[in-house]
């Protein structure tokens, strides 16, 4: 057993877990943050994506102890109170989700994508970089639309901040 401490969604947390515990299970079982999902056992589906120190990672692919001391953001942590994150809003407005199971991972992956590409994000890049996220419901059409819309809105927001 190990004691693992990290900052999750801005709060310092610690918990006891077996050494072999995956980060995703630590989040779900120890912290009861069940928004991060498990859809496979081979690191292929992306239902488990969270941000670790600002970068998207598959939380099924690392041990909780490896994340010790890191800053983790999960789907529960990206809205500001009642104000949804731009990617969350875009998913709703473009019907980018059906059953919602892949959605947390999709939103975390796309947020990271937009952080890196800004408003330059194009369809080809979205499709290519969604390689590690599987959705069985939507056919991706509306997910791609949501990503591009959020990118243009977040990019515009960044430019606005820069101009001010």
């Amino acid at each position, binding site marked *: 057993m190990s004691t693992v401490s990290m900052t999750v969604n801005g709060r310092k947390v610690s918990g006891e877990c077996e050494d072999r515990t995956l980060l995703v299970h630590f989040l779900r079982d120890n912290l009861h943050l069940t928004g991060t999902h*498990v859809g496979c056992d*081979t690191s*292929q589906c992306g239902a488990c994506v969270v941000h670790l120190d600002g970068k998207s990672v598959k939380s099924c692919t690392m041990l909780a102890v490896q994340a010790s001391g890191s800053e983790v953001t999960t789907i529960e942590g990206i809205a500001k109170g009642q104000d949804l994150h731009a990617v969350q809003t875009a998913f*709703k407005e473009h019907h980018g989700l*059906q*059953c919602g199971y892949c959605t*947390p991972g999709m939103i975390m992956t796309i947020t990271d994508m937009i952080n890196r590409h800004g408003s330059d994000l194009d369809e080809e890049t979205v499709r290519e970089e969604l390689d590690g996220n599987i959705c*069985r*419901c939507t*056919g991706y059409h509306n997910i791609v639309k949501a990503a591009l819309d959020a990118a243009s809105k977040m990019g515009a927001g960044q430019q606005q901040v820069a101009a001010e």
Partner: protein
Amino acid sequence: MGVEGIGAKVLRKEDRRFITGMGRYTDDMSVPGMKYAAFVRSPHAHAKITSIDASAARDMPGVIDFLDGQQLKADGIGNIICGWQVNSKDGSPMKMGAYPALADGVVRYVGQPIGIVVADTRNQARDAADAVMIEYEELPVVVKGPDALKDGAPQLHPEAENNLCFDWEIGDEGATAKAFENPAKVIRLDILNNRLSPNPIEPRAALGHYNPAEDHYTCYTTSQNPHVARLVMSAFYNVAPEHKLRVIAPDVGGGFGAKIYIYPEEIVCLWASRRTLVPVKWTSDRTEAFLTDAHGRDHVSKVEMALDENHRITGLRVETIANLGAYMSLFSSATPTYLYATLLSGQYNIPAIYANVKAVYTNTAPVDAYRGAGRPEATYLIERTMETAARELGISPAEFRRINFIRSFPHQTPVIMNYDTGDFEACMEAGMRMADVAGFEERRTEAKSRGKLRGLGMSCYIEACGIAPSKAVGSLGAGVGLWESAEIRVNPVGTIEVLTGSHSHGQGHETTFAQVVSQRFGVPVENVQIVHGDTDKVQFGMGTYGSRSGAVGCSAIVKALDKVEAKAKKIGAHLLEADEGDIVIENGEVKVAGTDKKLAWHEVCLGAYTGHNLPDGMEPGLKEGAFYDPQNFTFPAGCYICEVEVDPDTGVTKIVQFIAADDFGNVINPMIVEGQVHGGLAQGIGQALLEGVNYDESGQLVTASYMDYAMPRAWDLPMFKVETLVTPCTTNPLGLKGCGEAGAIGAPPAVINAITDAIGNNDLTMPATPEKVWNAINAVA
């Protein structure tokens, strides 16, 4: 959000919880004292179990118990059943092989559950499951449907001689034979429909909780139809009495058919909870899902189509071998029979049809309904044959279809179905316009200049949704009625709760059903709450599959709304001192037509509950229920056009455009309908290009992870162009046909027709992987 009725693009009410990580799926549930289960599964495709030794496992840390099939049997837990009786053509009933929830002496597919370990943690349960020592005596294995019928094939069940479950027929054999006596032309094809794994991204899960103090059972489960689960678990499996069993299907992460059936795991978790007196949770991992979720398709068929000199189809003859897997799943007999061969007339006038289906057992996972269930198999067979016929006749595929389209309705096919309405040519014309078919040859030439092979393929599908009139399906062998129920509870303040037997696992019922209610009384959609998925809340329901939630589930809601409206009008008339016939309810007001006399909707609702001033003899309250039994299936139809570019050097196919022109009847929420089409198309394209369940000769599943089973990813798919046309269904109150499965049904033949057009070789099977396409190109080069 205001009043937004039928036809409006209303953003989904349910989205907020999913985009914020607040969805509640079965594996998210925990109850105090909960323990974890792991199943011990067969590593062999066919073997006798000679001994089970769990002594080491029992001694491992955290282990509470190990239970196996002997104890299950001793406790009187019944075998898994198939709920649809199909008879062979000689009148004999189907031969159901005994299927205990935990194996009883023999295992017949890899992954079949043998025992369950209950332990304090998930890892402890898994470690202990690995430590259960089982000795096997291996038996010979058969995995392919046609091989199972061969002389000397390994025999699976003593009940089913030659592995034959049933040998079924439909249509008029004699009349069909006549059509082939003197035809102008006969088209012949061998058709393989590849085996698929449905793959909802949420794996199956079950949390069984027996409460000894109350002698009551609760089961959280990933189900598309919790009431059916409760009925079957109590009436057939004897796990718990129906009135003492609560089944809850909370948020469910996709179903696609795989979550219709009642599997061994939920039965065993519930039973294990009673044995161990702790709540028991099991969550499938992806490999277990590949091994044990019911697969779909897996047909091997021969088709012959007879034509006269005017290119009219005069007869269709089909022989199919359907692989059922090792055991019969809940609806496995209906899928390759009444859901398949009844659609073999397609969109065409075919005077004579005969089909024979042999359903066989093999050492593979059970096969049942997967998105489309039978209709994709029928559509693939017909639409590939149509395209092939047009090519052999040297006329355009559109022209050949025009010659043969059904144009007057209702239309009785020779295979049971009676199509109520449709306009097939209008869909095809719309599709051809959207796809710019006229400009295709130019695009083909341009592609050729770049060294690419461009092809165009069409598919004009028809399918049957809204399953189904109870009397009719009863006469065909269904063990249940296929009506739906609804209850409308109007609260004293005028807000409304709708309790429905339909179940949403991605379809957006919380929004579309609310729109129907909003439209009726002019109340905002946010004042309407949809309640589903809990047998303690909703009295009964048959659940969601076969695109039945609109056509059947919503019709039950409409019927209950009619009753609420009638009572509200009576109360309104009484309060406004007007004639009941003059009352209208709209925009949240109850008015006397042609006057300015009116009451707010909530005033009438409050009046119903205070009971201070009701018509003489009227009961207080405003709550009504209804059961709706459909009069007929509904018949969505449409035209899909796929355009591909194939790289002859690598065999890689790229879909350059995909067009869908669908007639779903009336549409409640076009945004949600489009989403359903996109998702269906992705699965249909997945079947055509990527997906295939593959067992090796020893019955080991080679495609048991996402490393090996190719799921469609964003990169594999184009943006879709989707339009809907409307011929309202004539047999239900809202004129809905259903849209959930069309994409998966119509897409595969459009893709394959496009590739075979591009490469000039019709000899190609799904999935059309680069290797197969490359070989097909080089076979004719």
